């Protein structure tokens, strides 16, 4: 809630870090926003002011600004993507805050996501987990007719629910172990729910988990913080699916 004119004065505490090898610190800024703005538009206003004063603007990743590209990654008041459930930082609007609020803004923090600058981190590890088996091995042009293999509506819907992952990394940022199990398992479960993806499921489970661990993500200890902050509300049942498949595959001595 804002004051009567719709404007709100805020105190921002933002993580500033010049580069990967420098140490960072929280710096405090005053900014005047408007309740209709998105959270990122509020940061735009701050950045325009900083540029005007000859200072370097705050670096942060963003692109689509409609909650689907997965670029934005801010920890807002200690919560990845901020206070609203099922919402990315770019979809968060200032009407969620009130005049006089203090807001803490930090990057994702995890060993496997090194900071590049300010609020920008390197999430390349996610691409490498997908490259380790998060796909169906089918070359272009070799597919049968799309209606040849029937898929029940419920299965297709469940697969979609997992496939909705935007790869933002909030699950890692929320996890006390910095585990990327929800990300990894969402991809695994999406493909496992579909007949096309089942063929390679064993190999996929083993390779993706190995890559996950090699990247330095921690283990899952079933805290479910990941599910709570996931902007696409992806279910932790995916992790159960991956664990079961991983155990099964380990017994079968899968060739990886």
């Amino acid at each position, binding site marked *: 809630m804002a004051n009567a004119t719709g404007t709100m004065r805020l105190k921002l505490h933002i993580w500033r870090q010049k580069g990967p090898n420098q140490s960072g610190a929280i710096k405090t800024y005053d900014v005047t926003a408007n309740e209709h703005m998105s959270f990122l538009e509020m940061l735009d206003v701050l950045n325009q002011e900083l540029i005007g004063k000859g200072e370097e603007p705050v670096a942060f990743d963003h692109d689509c600004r409609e909650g689907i590209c997965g670029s934005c990654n801010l920890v807002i008041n200690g919560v990845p993507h901020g206070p609203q459930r099922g919402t990315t930082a770019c979809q968060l609007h200032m009407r969620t805050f009130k005049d006089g609020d203090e807001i803490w803004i930090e990057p994702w923090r995890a060993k496997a996501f090194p900071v590049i600058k300010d609020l920008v981190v390197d999430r390349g590890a996610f691409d490498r987990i997908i490259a380790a088996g998060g796909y169906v091995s089918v070359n272009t042009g070799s597919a049968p007719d799309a209606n040849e293999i029937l*898929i029940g509506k419920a299965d297709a819907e469940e697969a979609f629910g997992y496939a909705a992952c935007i790869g933002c990394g909030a699950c890692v940022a929320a996890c006390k172990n910095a585990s990327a199990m929800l990300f990894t398992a969402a991809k695994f479960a999406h493909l496992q729910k579909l007949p096309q993806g089942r063929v390679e499921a064993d190999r996929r489970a083993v390779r993706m988990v190995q890559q996950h661990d090699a990247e330095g993500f921690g283990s899952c200890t079933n805290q479910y913080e990941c599910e709570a902050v996931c902007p696409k509300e992806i279910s932790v049942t995916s992790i159960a699916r991956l664990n079961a498949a991983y155990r099964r595959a380990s017994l079968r001595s899968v060739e990886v």
Partner: protein
Amino acid sequence: MHLDAKIPSGPIEKKWDTRRFELKLVNPANKRKYRVIVVGTGLAGGSAAATLAELGYHVDAFCFQDSPRRAHSIAAQGGINAAKNYQGDGDSIYRLFYDTVKGGDFRSREANVYRLAQVSVEIIDQCVAQGVPFAREYGGTLDNRSFGGAQVSRTFYARGQTGQQLLIGCYQALERQVDAGRVRMYPRTEMLDVVVIDGHAKGIVTRDLVTGKLQRHYADAVVLATGGYGNVFYLSTNAKNCNVTAAFRAYRRGALFANPCFTQIHPTCIPVSGDYQSKLTLMSESLRNDGRIWVPAKKGDQRAPGQIPEPERDYYLERKYPSFGNLAPRDIASRAAKEACDDGRGIGPGGLGVYLDFADAIQRLGEDEVRSRYGNLFHMYEKITGENPYKVPMRIYPAVHYTMGGLWVDYHLQSTIPGLFVLGEANFSDHGANRLGASALMQGLADGYFVIPYTLGDYLAGQKAGKADTTHAAFAEVENEVRARLQRLLDVNGSRSVDSFHRELGKLMWEECGMARDAAGLQRALDRIPALREEFWGDVRVPGDSADFNQELEKAGRVADFMEFAELMCLDALTRDESCGGHFRTEHQTDDGEAVRDDANFTHVSAWEYKGYGERPVEQREPLVFENVKLAVRSYK
């Protein structure tokens, strides 16, 4: 310059088969000797990079995002067209071809469009095989819905996130090739110029956005799949970082730019809420399957929507276009919204909005069914506006969404620079003056999965692999130019931010080269743009330096290119003295406000040739020949 579109001879349904047989092949053992650069990893670039690597070429793929999965194709909501005729409702390859040519207001190339319709059916097969979770019927078959400009249901979809699901399919195929060692991926790397050696595209110069380092990359061919230029308007539904730089740099090196004035204004976007607005959000066209668009019948009616009784509402699309109703094509629906608002019947702040109302649909289908069809879109709307669209109608207004114009390409998708191929939204070829909904995804994947793998081989078969390398003088020259330009941007050290210039340019373009254009306005823009550009180069402030992660410097380079490109758009819009599709010249309209084409003088593609900074580009023309579809007044009444 003679523009040879290389259209195969023979009947239209045989052209692609004929050409595929004529194309030269590269022997499998030789493919790995060729290196191909693919810039952009959206549907077009991602599918091209994956498929070319599957064939055995070595691919270097580039994107400025932190991961190839984030390209803006991901934001496409509604669906992808394909002539599968699974619904048995009268669809066919020919009908999709016909609808697309007509939808484009007869300003596209017949042969390209026919091929697009042909390969559309293979796209769906491919995506399903990759694990794309399309919507399904209870019996397990694929579901379809309708989109604008069609009277059949041929749109395949995955809730309101079809682009995301298709892109993830394509990204996974790409990562599979990364794993196989056949694709080297360069994320956070922006292409800043093309290198042309002996008249052929042989590489690019890039900037590593993390370290700021300039890099030279050599290849035997370069594929650009770098999207559209809608952000020239500042406010659009494009992602913030979408830009024209790659295409514009290629234009400056000799690739012709075709029909830049053909831009698509999408009728259903969330209206602007204030000056701080950084982008606009689309509400999918699929909503028009069940939502009804209306404004109050009386001017200046300030009552809440629920207080306005049926007889005092004007469902203007249903009234004006009874056979297509709310599913009239985008250009027509947008203009009708503008007309209602110009008439003083707009709703919401500033009167710049119309209602998209689901009350009837909720009554007919129940709220649960409406939620299962459009839940995520309603959710997105509520987050942005704070209003619940299950209870009150959505407020929508047209916004810049897509650009039909792009680099000129022949039937092989090759630009006027040999060895430089252009795919997806970045080329101009398939949508004429207006793109139909759910056809952008189709075109991106058609180009990448099913066209370039054939046509690129034909070019490479005539090239000796690895003919020159990055030590060639041309690379040094281009790299020096790129470095000097970056330094020049930093050296201005003026008083205004990059964004403030971008906003000013965008506002000018929206006013003079937006939904309605006329000669006087376009001339005003042509007078103002060069002056604004000079102000930019004289007064922009770019903090930081070039050897660092510097988002302001990235933006500055892109806006500098928009400043030049905007002039080309206005010149094209002024030269095309007719109305067609999304290009509406107010001088050319019927009494009831429909576009009037001038087929005698404008049945051609305008392709512009760069002649130097500040010099007037030269127009080349490719005549459009319609052998199958009869040129007619486009009617959706």
